[in-house]
C-alpha cells in the first residue's frame, strides 16, 4: 500500500539471490589474487624448488595443495560474513534470507575454487614432464572437481556456523564451538578416505548430508540472533 506512494518501486529478485550475489561479488577481488597465487606456488614454485635442490617430487604436489587450502580460505571468508548481518537487517531483509544467501555464496565460492583443481593437475603434469618426473592425476578430473566443491563447502559452512554461534551466544560459546572448524578433517579421517581428491559415492553422499546439516544448523542459529549495540 504505502510503498506505492513513495515513488518508483522497482521489482527486485529475491533478497537471498541479491545478497548471495553481493557476497560472492565482494569475494571476487581477493579470489583474483588468491587463485593465481595458489597455482603459481603449487604448480610452479614448489616443483621448481624441489628440482633446484635435486629432490624427486611425489606423484603430485597439487593434490596436497588443493586438499585443505581452498577450505581454509573459504572458512575465513564465511566466518567474516557475520559482520554483514546487521547491515542486511538494516536494509530491511530477514535473517532467513541472509542465512540462505550465505549458504549459497559458500557453495558458489567453493565451486569457483574447485575450478582450479583440474586446471592445476593439467599444468602440473606438463611441469613434471619437463623434469622427466612421473605424474599421477586422478582418473577423473570431473570427480576431483566435485570432491573439491563438497570438501570446501563443508569447511566454509563450519566457519560460518562457528562465527554465528560466537555472535549469538557470546565469546565462551564461540570458543566451545571452535572444534567445529575442524569438522572436515575429523569426518574425513572417520570415513577412511584414502584418496582425498576422488570420493566414492557413499562418501560424497555423506558430505552432501553434512553440508545440509551445517546449513540447517547455521540458519537455526542465525534465526535467533539479536543484533548487538554499537559501541561507537
Amino acid at each position, binding site marked *: 500500500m*504505502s510503498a506505492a*506512494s513513495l515513488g518508483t518501486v522497482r521489482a*527486485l529478485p529475491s533478497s537471498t539471490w*541479491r545478497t548471495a550475489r553481493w557476497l560472492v561479488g565482494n569475494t571476487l577481488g581477493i579470489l583474483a589474487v588468491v587463485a593465481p597465487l595458489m597455482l603459481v606456488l603449487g604448480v610452479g614454485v614448489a616443483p621448481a624448488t624441489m628440482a633446484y635442490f635435486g629432490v624427486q617430487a611425489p606423484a603430485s604436489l597439487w593434490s596436497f595443495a588443493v586438499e585443505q587450502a581452498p577450505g581454509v580460505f573459504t572458512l575465513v571468508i564465511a566466518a567474516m560474513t557475520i559482520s554483514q548481518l546487521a*547491515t542486511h*537487517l538494516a536494509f*530491511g531483509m*530477514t535473517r532467513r534470507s541472509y542465512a540462505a544467501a550465505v549458504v549459497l555464496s559458500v557453495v558458489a565460492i567453493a565451486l569457483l575454487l574447485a575450478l582450479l583443481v583440474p586446471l592445476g593437475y593439467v599444468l602440473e603434469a606438463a611441469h613434471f614432464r619437463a623434469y622427466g618426473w612421473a605424474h599421477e592425476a586422478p582418473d577423473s578430473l570431473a570427480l576431483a572437481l566435485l570432491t573439491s566443491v563438497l570438501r570446501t563447502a563443508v569447511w566454509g559452512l563450519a566457519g560460518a556456523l562457528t562465527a554465528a554461534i560466537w555472535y549469538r551466544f557470546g565469546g565462551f560459546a564461540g570458543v566451545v564451538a571452535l572444534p567445529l572448524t575442524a569438522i572436515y578433517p575429523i569426518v574425513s579421517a572417520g570415513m577412511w578416505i584414502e584418496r582425498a581428491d576422488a570420493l566414492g559415492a557413499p562418501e560424497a553422499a555423506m558430505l552432501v548430508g553434512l553440508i545440509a546439516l551445517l546449513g540447517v544448523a547455521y540458519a537455526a542459529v542465525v534465526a535467533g540472533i539479536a*543484533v548487538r*549495540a554499537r559501541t561507537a
Partner: protein
Amino acid sequence: MTGFGVELRDVSVRFGATVALGGVTAAFLPGAISGLLGRNGSGKTTLLSTIAAFRRPSGGSVRVDGEAPWENPRVLAGIALVREAGDVPDVRVGEVLRYGAAMRSTWSGEVAERLLARFDLPRRKRVEHLSRGQRGALAAVVGIASRAPLTLLDEVTLGMDAPARYACYDELLADYLAHPRTVVLASHLIEEVDRLLEHVIVLDRGRVLVADEADALRARGVRVSGEAERVDAFVGDARVLRRETLGRSAVVTLYGDLGSDARARAREKEIEMHPLPLQDLFVDLTDRPGSADRPGGAR
C-alpha cells in the same frame, strides 16, 4: 495516510537482570514525523531495535503496519533503521550506494547522489576510513535515500557538526514533503529537531513518560512567576516540575492544563506566564536530582 504505523503494547526488553524497557505502550502514527526523546540510556535505541526486529522483545507485542515485524519479509522491506554510525557494508562509499540500490526497492539513486554531493562525501573512500562525522552523514544519506515507509533514525546526527546536522534536517524534511512516510527521530538534541516534529514520545528509564502531539506538549509546559503565595494558589494541583524562590517571588515550572481562563486569572493576580520550550520541558520532566547513575546503559 502513507507510511507504516507502529503499535507497541506492553513491550518489555530485559538483559539479564537489567530492564531496558519496562512495559512500553505507545504508537507512532503513520505518515507523521515523531520524536523519540529521552536521556542516554532511557531505552530509545532498544525500542527502535525492537521495532526494526533487530531483537525480539522479552514480552508484549510489536505491530508494524498491522503485523509482527520479526522475520516478516513484507514488513521488514518497509523498515529502515539507521543507527548513529550507520549499518552499511564496509566497502567504498560509492559501492554503499550500489548496495542500497540493489537491496531496497524504494531506493532513490537521485536523492543519494544529491546528498552525497551536499555532504561532500568522498565516493572512492572506504567506509572504515571515514571520519565520525562523515560516517554519520553517510548513514543519513542511506536513511533518506531508502525512502522506507518506516524510517527510524537513531541519533544519526550525533557525530556531525552543526551545518551538517541542519543540512540533514532540511534534506529529511524536503524529501518527506515530496514523499510522505513515517519517520521516527530519536534524539536528545531537542531544540534542533523540535520544529520537525508532529508527535512526541518521551522515554525515561525504559518507560513512556509523555506521549502527545508536539504542539499540545509545548502548550502544556508553562513557567509561572510572581509573588510566591499568589503563584502557589494559582498553580493549585497542577503537576509541578520545578519550583524556585527568590525572596518573596517564586518561579514554578508546571505541566498540565490550567484551564481556558488561566491567562485572565494570571493577569488578575499579576502573575507572568510563559510557555516552555520543548527542550526545557524535557529537561524538567526527566531530571531527577541524584539520579546520575541509573540502571540500564545504552544497548
